[in-house]
């Protein structure tokens, strides 16, 4: 009986480890784990948006009739994650360090930095993970806005590059226009 219990436990542990391995392996190429963020101690702004594929495909179905182009773009998305963290004296250095670390990780993993905008107190970086010329598998946007906030965006999916610019134009979203133009130039 003891042996049976031991075997069952071992089997459970092995299955759990295997599942974890599979999950880690199954993370789509455009997915980046930003880690966990904590709200600023001073009580500043803290926003988290995490939209998974089931909700995205539902919205895509809803948009199909009126906005077929938007629906097509949405159908290719697997995940949208946005984190906005207000900056204060307690977390500014940590956030800057995190952005720096993330950017070097993206460089090391073969992501392309396609937009770099550094004004006096603003630092924007846009990275793309592409699959040849046919699709964008992931977009990462990092923004440090002086003393105001840090923004982390990760869009994961199978996105046709030409659609990004179309959506940017269609909805007048400047960052998407820039990304679309940058992808088209490549």
């Amino acid at each position, binding site marked *: 009986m003891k042996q049976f219990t031991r075997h069952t436990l071992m089997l459970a542990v092995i299955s759990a480890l295997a599942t974890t391995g599979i999950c880690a392996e199954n993370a789509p190429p455009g997915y980046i784990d930003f880690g966990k963020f904590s709200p600023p101690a001073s009580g500043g*702004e803290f926003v988290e948006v995490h939209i998974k594929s*089931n909700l995205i495909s*539902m919205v895509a179905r809803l948009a199909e009739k009126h906005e077929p182009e938007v629906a097509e773009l949405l159908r290719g998305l697997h995940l949208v994650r946005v984190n906005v963290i207000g900056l204060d004296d307690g977390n500014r250095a940590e956030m800057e360090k995190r952005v720096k670390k993330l950017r070097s990780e993206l460089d090391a993993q073969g992501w392309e930095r396609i937009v770099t905008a550094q004004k006096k107190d603003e630092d924007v970086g846009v990275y793309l993970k592409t699959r040849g010329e046919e699709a964008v598998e992931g977009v990462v946007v990092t923004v440090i806005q002086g003393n105001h906030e840090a923004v982390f965006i990760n869009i994961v999916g199978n996105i046709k590059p030409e659609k990004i610019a179309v959506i940017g134009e*269609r909805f007048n979203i*400047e960052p998407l226009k820039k990304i679309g133009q940058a992808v088209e130039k490549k």
Partner: protein
Amino acid sequence: MPWGRERWGETPSSPDLPWTGIRAREYARPTRTCARLKIGIALVLALLCVALTGCFRVSSDVRVLRDSVMNSAAADWNEKIEIGVGALTLNLARAGLAFVDLDAEARTALQSVRGAEVGVYQLRHRHKPLKHSAMLSAADKAMASRGWDRIVGVMSQRELVAIYVRNDVRSARNVKVCLLALNGREMVVASARSNLEPLMELAFNRPEWHPTGRSGIHF
């Protein structure tokens, strides 16, 4: 039936009486069945009413969300209002509003709702500042164990907002959303079940959706 083992109401001298008794019991049986059936129907109707009207109480999901936040805050809360309405109540309301001159968009929005619950609570005493991140973590944990994903979380010094959707949501025709909003000393926990199709139709037809009526997003 042998002598000396007669039941109540039977006379040993009458040979026909045992048959009369059996017949009487047979007549009596449907009456008992009828009574049971009536009780059963009443119970089913009562349960149906509770399910359809919402019985003006909040569902277990909203209760879990409320309790997780209240327990993690470790503070005393006063219930200001707690109400839930189900499909039957909403249909009655819609039927009543059919005679009222209502804006078409408002009517569409009302028709898309299939159930709604809301609870409003207030902190009872002056309390040291609430730990919003702990409250949000507790709410996330409680809701995740019931199959809910948080899609939006917003925190600031005074406010906390979290929106949850079922992680098995597939159809836009029946989407349930839970909301937690905390503003200073006041907390609102709400949930709504709705058909999103007419609402999206409404949104797409609004001028703000079209490029001419839309302001740009820049950074």
